[in-house]
């Protein structure tokens, strides 16, 4: 009997596919829709202390094989957003609240606010295009250790640290998160990128720099997950360029116990969750896996 449920440290999810932060997850309706289309959990848009409008348009560059975005962390602020996660939580939807802040105190403040209605907290230590936030603080191991430690001492629900690929050695940051007490690490956020329009003679994104996601970054994510799997003992969650059940299996073999899907939703619609789950089950049957857990890290045995 095939069981799709997975454990991420102390949590049990009905299946290993989650909605990645920042993609169709700023509203109650969208997250509910994605939960209903099969996701094992929904991770919210990263939320801060107060409302942020984000950057002006253009905010995305959509190319074959990849997307570059610089949304600028738009969000209504935690106090407003609480209403949304409360409603989702009341309907037994597994919500993982993603938060961003400048320092450990603010992260803890946000985590405490969200705790009551969240299954877990994901710390955005990795957004590549926001001043004083995300990757700017998340590429320093001491910062990461301090932030994780501070949040862990503030809430009882699991805390995940989402890491940046824009770093010399992702395992150094992963280890800092683990030592800080993180229950899991998530890799990767987007890869720093830029596109210039040669007719307009300027960067397309209003913020100039953005983050690359989608198909093209899958090998970057796989390398990060593989490395983290060998470096930390806590679970690794994989994200970056997943579009198919094969991609899910590849991430799991690299060491991910579960995965998150973002950009592919723009290309294939929310039913992608459903489709991948069906195909994953067929794949598991054919390959005699009873649980996704059996795939986790197998590429290390032969690798």
């Amino acid at each position: 009997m095939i069981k799709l449920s997975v454990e991420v440290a102390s949590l049990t999810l009905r299946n290993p596919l989650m909605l990645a932060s920042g993609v169709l997850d700023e509203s109650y309706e969208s997250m509910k829709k994605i939960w209903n289309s099969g996701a094992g959990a929904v991770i919210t848009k990263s939320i801060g202390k107060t409302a942020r409008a984000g950057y002006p348009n253009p905010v995305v560059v959509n190319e074959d094989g990849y997307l570059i975005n610089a949304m600028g962390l738009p969000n209504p602020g935690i106090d407003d957003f609480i209403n949304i996660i409360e409603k989702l939580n009341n309907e037994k939807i597994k919500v993982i609240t993603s938060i961003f802040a400048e320092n450990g105190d603010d992260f803890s403040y946000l985590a405490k606010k969200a705790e009551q209605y969240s299954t877990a907290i994901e710390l955005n230590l990795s957004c590549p295009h926001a001043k004083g936030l995300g990757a700017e603080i998340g590429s320093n191991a001491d910062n990461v250790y301090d932030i994780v430690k501070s949040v862990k001492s503030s809430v009882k629900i699991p805390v995940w640290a989402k890491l940046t690929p824009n770093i010399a050695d992702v395992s150094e940051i992963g280890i800092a998160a683990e030592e800080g007490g993180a229950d899991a690490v998530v890799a990767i956020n987007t890869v720093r990128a830029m596109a210039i329009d040669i007719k307009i003679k300027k960067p397309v994104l209003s913020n100039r720099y953005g983050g690359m996601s989608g198909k093209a970054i899958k090998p970057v994510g796989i390398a990060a997950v593989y490395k983290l799997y060998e470096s930390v003992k806590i679970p690794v969650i994989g994200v970056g360029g997943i579009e198919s059940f094969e991609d899910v299996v590849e991430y799991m073999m690299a060491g991910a116990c579960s995965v998150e899907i973002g950009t592919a939703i723009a290309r294939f619609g929310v039913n992608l969750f459903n489709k991948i789950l069906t195909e994953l089950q067929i794949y598991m049957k054919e390959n005699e896996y009873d649980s996704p857990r059996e795939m986790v890290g197998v590429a290390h045995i032969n690798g």
Partner: protein
Amino acid sequence: MRRVTVIETVERENNNTITVRFRDDLCVMPGQFYMVWFPPINEIPLSVSYNGKLKGVTVKGIGKSTKKIVEGAVGDVISLDGPYGNYFKPYGNKILAIAGGVGIASIILAIESFHSMGLDITTIIGAKKYDELIFMERANISSDTFIVTTDDGSYGEKGFTVNIAEKLIAEKKFDSIITCGPEIMMKKIVDISLKSNIKVYASIERIMKCAIGICDSCVFGAYHICMDGPIFTGEQLKDIPDFGKWKHGFSGEKIKL
């Protein structure tokens, strides 16, 4: 695919509205929109108001970027993305089109296309006052019945499109209704249509950022304007609590309409 094209002409429709024409070879259907970037100004969604080789968009100055655009602070080139969205399809033979303000820019191509298919088109165009009326001649030529209303009576019938529409719907037997304009207006028209059991299609606006169904800024009930709209049917709209009541701001916060 984002592409850059040269602005061929800029026409002033009235003192707060301009039409920008440019070449674009992609096929556009009535009611679809482009994401148009006017460097150094923002990128915004705009309905296609002229079809063919020399396409056009019509912009009303209502905020930060649109005002600058209308004032002419645009460069020589614009960047286009799209066309995006679904489009107006004719339902039945006798169609009522109702436009409020710059909303006519979103349905003028549908009126022209339905007319050229030989359908019977009744058009109601409404605006606050005479100065704000646009595309009158185009709409007139392509309509079998053509009615103009102004709130202040400075042109056509004094009053609101909704009142005229309600009367017409009661008198004539329309097969379907298409509409674009202020959401409060569209809400009333949709309610009337649903009560009268007439198919209705309304073009809805929400803040567009990505236009590819990823950013959630255009969420509209369980739908997204960019993926499932901008045109929604009465059946869809009656189940969307936000319709006519709430929209989201740039931060995702809820704003009363």
